[in-house]
Structure formats: structure tokens, C-alpha cells
């Protein structure tokens, strides 16, 4: 819903809450359901209501638990059967500078101040550890914003008697905890307040009257940021950019101005702005975001412009360059097929509002950066939240490389008449093993991102993966695929629960990057091997239909399972019996031990 994308109008979101919610629930029907407990030190119902909307817009339906007014500490630390029964997936701790007593006075020395700081920090650490131990949930914790007055003026920030200094030191301790704990995320309230405008943010009136921590119109901003963190955790980030060239990556029109006439580089002010944008995109690429070009130009002209001018983005930085005279919507849909990414994983940037309009209407769910001025692109992408980072794994660094290797693989196919010969020529090797702790984060990330080649679309947090991996009653397998073109990394996961002599396959997924290589058959072979070792003779599995996983509707049939039943939603249940007589199905991938 465009009205909930950045830049949304806060007044609109707040006043039309009910109507917006109605429309969102009508618009979509396949939601990821999660439970969020908000433990707050002030009145934040408006934040909850807006969070509800932003999450729905991202395909997430939340059930909320709100702590009793200002009982965030007690609710977390003491016996709480209601919260235990609720069993939150996420606990959001909404505290703000209002919850810190400003009782450091000028008579105290460094040691006394430090002591207070540690006591205050320990209170929070106690909350986090209690929540971690009892609920094993993800924690989102606000940091502290600057206070509403500076008793020590400009010295308030540097002098240890300053309240600002105290808050920033406390923040830094929070960040250290965040760096060392993987299920813990900071919501940067400090940035949100600064961005909103500290003067407008603070309201003595609202706090005195209703214990509301900030201006009501700032609450959508807080909710938007928290929603971005959550949707990122649940794998709903956008994954790729589709970038126009003329007047988007450089100033001017290359077919008219030539490589000497377009503005890109330090020689002109205009060129500098485009160069800044290119540098920003190069940094985003390092996060694992795929850069692509979609331009109405002859390919040779476009490539000349990219490679032979002063821009920092070269051909190599883009995974796919679509420079032709097809419509941009068609090109984005083609990119979607080529890269095996949903079209709604793309964000389109183009200075021409007509092009943006056409793409918005013809590519369902695609993100659009609604700006035409180059000096505004960075801010628009940055604030959009499309690429909010929560879990960054090493594999993300060279994502582009992996996608390009894949395109090389596709190109090889044309050399072969028999597809099987092509597969053998790839010289594929796989490592298939039970989950290892060094991969827990990557496994969780994959379970949250995979939508298409996924039988049950079950989502797992890092904590979930860890408990399952350490539990003898589960069989877990990850599959890493390599070939002569490169290493695809971990591309497949299987999780099965053992019930006596039967395995219940609750998760089976594969990355779309390795379709049609028979990797899924290798995983099946290895699952059966693991079952045989534990004297399991039957596997039951389910296909749970979603909007996105039609491609695995008949996977279990292809695997040789027998269908047991099917319901009116299209979900089906299957079994594979007599594993002792199972014959391996994958012939073209060698398993390395």
C-alpha cells in the first residue's frame, strides 16, 4: 500500500488507522503470523497500532501483548504466567530517556557516576537475560534519545555530570550487548528523534497528561523502524535494484550527449551528485543487494557509458544489464525469471515519473523510489527501509558474484544437446551434513527468505535452529553445492522430527539459484540415508500451499511419495515407506564427506 511506504504522512496513518487495517486485511491473505510483546515504560498504544499496520503491509500479522503501564521491568523479570502463555516471538522493550532518572548531580565524582551507570545498565541486562532464558524470543530494545534540555549546555554531552553524556554512555553499553548477542536488536530511537526534530519530539504536556513519551506524530516513525527490523528478520527485505541509466546513474542522455557529454565524476557539481549516488549503490552491493540496469538504450551504447566514464559502477558491479527497447516492466519481469527472484523483490529507480508509474502498475509488489532528482535518491532509498539489515552473513558479501556465476552456468547449457550431459559437465560436489553452529545464522536466514521452493514455509529464528540442532529427536541437514563455476554456498535445508520409527519432514527447502541441478534429489537421498542409520522406515511430509510455492506442488510425487490426503486449501499430506529398499535418485552430484 503506497500510503504506508516512505514517505508516509503521519497524520494520515494515525487518523485513518481503522480503514487502513481493513483494506490491508482485504488485500492480502497469506500472512506470516507472529506474536509481539511490548514492554513499555510509557504509554505507547499509538506505536503498537501503527506497528500493526506497517507489519501487515509487509505480509506479517501480529498478535500483541502489552505490559501494564510502566511495568516493563517486573513483567520481564518476575513470574509472569500471562506472558509465558502468550509465548512471544519478539519482545520489544520501549524505554526512552523518560525512564532514566536524572539524579547525577555536580557533587558526584567519576567513580560514583560510573557506579550508577553500571547499576542502571545491569537492570536492563537483567531484563534481556530473563527474556532470553524464559522465552527464547528476539529482543528489540530502544536506545535513548537526547533529553529535552541540557543543564550543562554544550558541556552536557562531554562532561560526565551531563545527562546527555550519561545517556550516550548507557547507549554505548547497549550497543556492546547488541554486538555480542545475535537475537538482540537496537531500535535507534536516538536517530528517529533527531530525524523527527528534537524540539517537536519532546512534549512535557503529553508526558504529564498521559505519560506519552514523545509527540504523537512521531509514533509512526518509531513503528516504521521497528516494522523494518521485524520484516527484515522474517526475510521480507527487497533483494535487488533495477536502475535506469540516463539521468539516474549519470546526468544527461548517453545516446545524445555521448560519453564525453554525460555528467558523471568530479569535474562538475552535477557529476559529483551522480557519483555520490553510484558510491552509495556500491556500498549497498556489499550488503548482498543485487544491482541491475534497466535502460532504454542500445546495449553497446549503455555498456560504453558504464565502462568508459568516471562512474564507480562498472559492468562487473551489475549482475544483469537490460539495455534494449522493451518496456521496463517487461525487463523487470525478465530479470525476475533470469535471477529466480520474485518480481516483488525488486526496487525500481528511474528519474522519469511516467516510467515509474508504468512499472508500478505492471509489476506487482515492486518497490518504487518516487524521486526524480539525483540529490534525493540516496535519502529516499535509505529511509525506505527496503534493505534493512538485521542478519548479515559472510555469504552476503559476494552475492553478486554468485548470481553472475549462475548466469554463466545458464549460458553453458546451450553447448549441450542432452541436459544430463550438461549436468555432468558441471562437475558438481555437495557437502550435506547436520546443522553446525557456525552455520546457524545462515540456516535461519535461509529459512526466513525462501518462499518458492519450500514445502511448508516454516520460519526459524537462530534460537529455534540451535535448539533443534542440539536435539537428538531431530534430523537436520544442510546442503552446500559447488561446481566448476564456483561455490553456491548453503542452498538447501531439511529438518525432520523423529517419532518412533517415523520421520516427520517439517522443513524442506532449496534456493531458487540452484533449480534443475537435481540438488533436491541429493538432499532426499541423504535424508533417507540419515533415516536408515536411525532405523526409521517411513517419512511423512506435507505440502502447505502458499501464493509463492506452486513450484513444489508435485515435488513429493516426483520424490516417489504416496499422497495420503488433500484438503480444500490445496494442502496435501504424503508418505514414503519401505526406506530399506530406497534407491538413490541423484546421479550427477558427488557427496563429499
Amino acid at each position, binding site marked *: 500500500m503506497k500510503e504506508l511506504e516512505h514517505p508516509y504522512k*503521519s*497524520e494520515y496513518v*494515525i*487518523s*485513518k*488507522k*481503522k*480503514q487502513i487495517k*481493513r483494506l490491508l486485511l482485504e488485500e492480502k491473505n497469506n500472512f506470516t503470523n507472529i506474536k509481539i510483546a511490548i514492554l513499555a515504560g510509557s*504509554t505507547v*498504544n*499509538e506505536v503498537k497500532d501503527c506497528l500493526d499496520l506497517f507489519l501487515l503491509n509487509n505480509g506479517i500479522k501480529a498478535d500483541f501483548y502489552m505490559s501494564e503501564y510502566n511495568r516493563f521491568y517486573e513483567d520481564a523479570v518476575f513470574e509472569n504466567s500471562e506472558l509465558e502463555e502468550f509465548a512471544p516471538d519478539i519482545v520489544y522493550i520501549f524505554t526512552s530517556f523518560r525512564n532514566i532518572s536524572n539524579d547525577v548531580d555536580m557533587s558526584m565524582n567519576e567513580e560514583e557516576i560510573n557506579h550508577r551507570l553500571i547499576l542502571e545498565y545491569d537492570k536492563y541486562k537483567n531484563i534481556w537475560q530473563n527474556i532470553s532464558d524464559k522465552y527464547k524470543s528476539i529482543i528489540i530494545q530502544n536506545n535513548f534519545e537526547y533529553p529535552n534540555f541540557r543543564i550543562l549546555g554544550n558541556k552536557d554531552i562531554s562532561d560526565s555530570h551531563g545527562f546527555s553524556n550519561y545517556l550516550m554512555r548507557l547507549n554505548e553499553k547497549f550497543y556492546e550487548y547488541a554486538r555480542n548477542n545475535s537475537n538482540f536488536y537496537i531500535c535507534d530511537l536516538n536517530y528517529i528523534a533527531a530525524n523527527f526534530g528534537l524540539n517537536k519530539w519532546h512534549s512535557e*504536556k*503529553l508526558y*504529564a*497528561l*498521559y505519560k*506519552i513519551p514523545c*509527540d*504523537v*506524530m512521531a509514533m509512526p516513525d518509531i513503528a516504521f523502524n521497528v516494522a523494518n527490523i521485524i520484516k527484515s528478520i522474517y526475510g521480507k527485505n527487497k533483494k535487488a535494484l533495477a536502475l535506469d541509466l540516463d539521468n539516474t546513474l549519470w546526468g544527461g542522455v548517453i545516446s545524445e550527449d555521448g560519453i564525453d557529454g554525460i555528467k558523471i565524476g568530479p569535474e562538475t557539481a552535477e557529476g559529483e551528485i551522480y557519483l555520490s549516488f553510484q558510491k552509495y549503490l556500491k556500498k549497498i552491493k556489499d550488503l548482498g543487494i543485487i544491482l541491475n540496469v534497466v535502460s532504454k538504450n542500445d546495449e553497446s551504447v549503455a555498456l560504453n557509458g558504464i565502462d568508459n566514464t568516471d562512474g564507480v559502477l562498472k559492468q562487473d558491479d551489475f549482475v544483469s544489464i537490460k539495455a534494449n527497447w522493451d518496456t521496463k516492466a517487461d525487463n523487470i519481469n525478465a530479470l525476475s525469471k533470469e535471477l529466480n527472484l520474485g518480481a516483488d523483490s525488486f526496487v525500481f529507480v528511474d528519474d522519469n515519473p511516467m516510467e515509474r508509474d508504468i512499472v508500478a502498475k505492471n509489476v506487482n509488489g515492486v518497490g518504487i523510489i518516487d524521486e526524480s532528482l539525483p540529490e534525493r535518491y540516496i535519502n529516499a532509498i535509505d529511509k525506505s527501509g527496503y534493505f534493512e539489515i538485521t542478519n548479515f552473513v559472510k555469504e552476503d558479501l559476494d552475492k553478486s558474484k554468485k548470481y553472475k556465476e549462475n548466469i554463466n552456468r545458464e549460458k553453458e547449457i546451450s553447448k549441450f544437446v542432452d541436459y544430463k550431459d550438461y549436468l555432468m559437465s558441471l562437475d558438481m560436489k555437495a557437502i550435506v551434513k547436520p546443522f553446525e553452529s557456525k552455520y546457524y545464522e545462515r540456516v535461519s536466514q535461509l529459512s526466513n527468505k525462501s518462499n518458492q521452493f519450500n514445502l511448508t514455509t516454516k520460519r526459524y529464528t537462530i534460537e529455534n535452529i540451535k535448539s533443534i540442532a542440539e536435539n537428538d529427536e531431530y534430523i537436520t541437514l544442510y546442503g552446500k553445492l559447488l561446481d566448476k563455476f564456483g561455490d553456491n554456498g548453503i542452498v538447501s535445508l531439511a529438518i525432520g522430527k523423529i517419532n518412533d520409527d517415523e520421520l516427520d519432514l517439517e522443513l524442506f527447502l532449496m534456493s531458487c539459484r540452484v533449480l534443475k541441478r537435481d540438488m533436491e534429489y541429493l538432499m532426499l537421498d541423504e535424508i533417507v540415508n540419515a533415516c536408515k542409520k536411525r532405523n526409521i522406515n517411513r517419512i511423512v511430509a506435507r505440502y502447505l500451499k502458499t501464493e509463492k510455492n506452486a513450484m513444489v506442488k508435485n515435488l513429493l510425487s516426483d520424490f516417489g511419495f504416496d499422497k495420503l490426503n488433500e484438503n480444500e486449501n490445496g494442502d496435501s499430506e504424503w508418505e514414503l515407506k519401505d526406506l530399506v529398499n530406497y534407491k538413490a535418485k541423484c546421479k550427477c552430484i558427488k557427496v563429499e564427506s
Partner: protein
Amino acid sequence: MSREEVIAKVTNVFRDIFDDNNLTINDKTTANDIEGWDSLTHITLISTIAEEFGINFDMSDVVKFENVGDMIDSIMGKLCK
């Protein structure tokens, strides 16, 4: 802006917040008259109205509001300044 225009604008805000296009209000309307007008909704109402008119309600104003009429009077007073 005339009192009628202010009432019309405030009515629109009420209609959005309560998601009811047929809602009508008058000077005597209080929280007892509209279902769902609780203390939390009250905060949303006041903030949205303030934003809509580009004004700021003082603390002393807000605590004195007994009905919609008081609210309208306060808005009129601020718009005239």
C-alpha cells in the same frame, strides 16, 4: 474560518478515526456518545485535530474540554490569533 467550517473539518477527523462515514457531532457531543472514544482514542483525536489545523493545544485547554463544543471554541480561539 467560520465555526461551521471548523465543525466540518473536525467531523471529518472524527469520521476517519472512528471509521464511520455517517458519524455526526455537535457542540454537546461527549465521549459517552461515541463508542470507542476512550482515553487512548482521545489522545489520537486531540493530536490529529491539532495537526490538521496547525495549532497546539495547551495543557490548560485540554484538561478543561468537557464536550466537542469546548474543543471547537478552543480551535476558533487559536485560529483567530
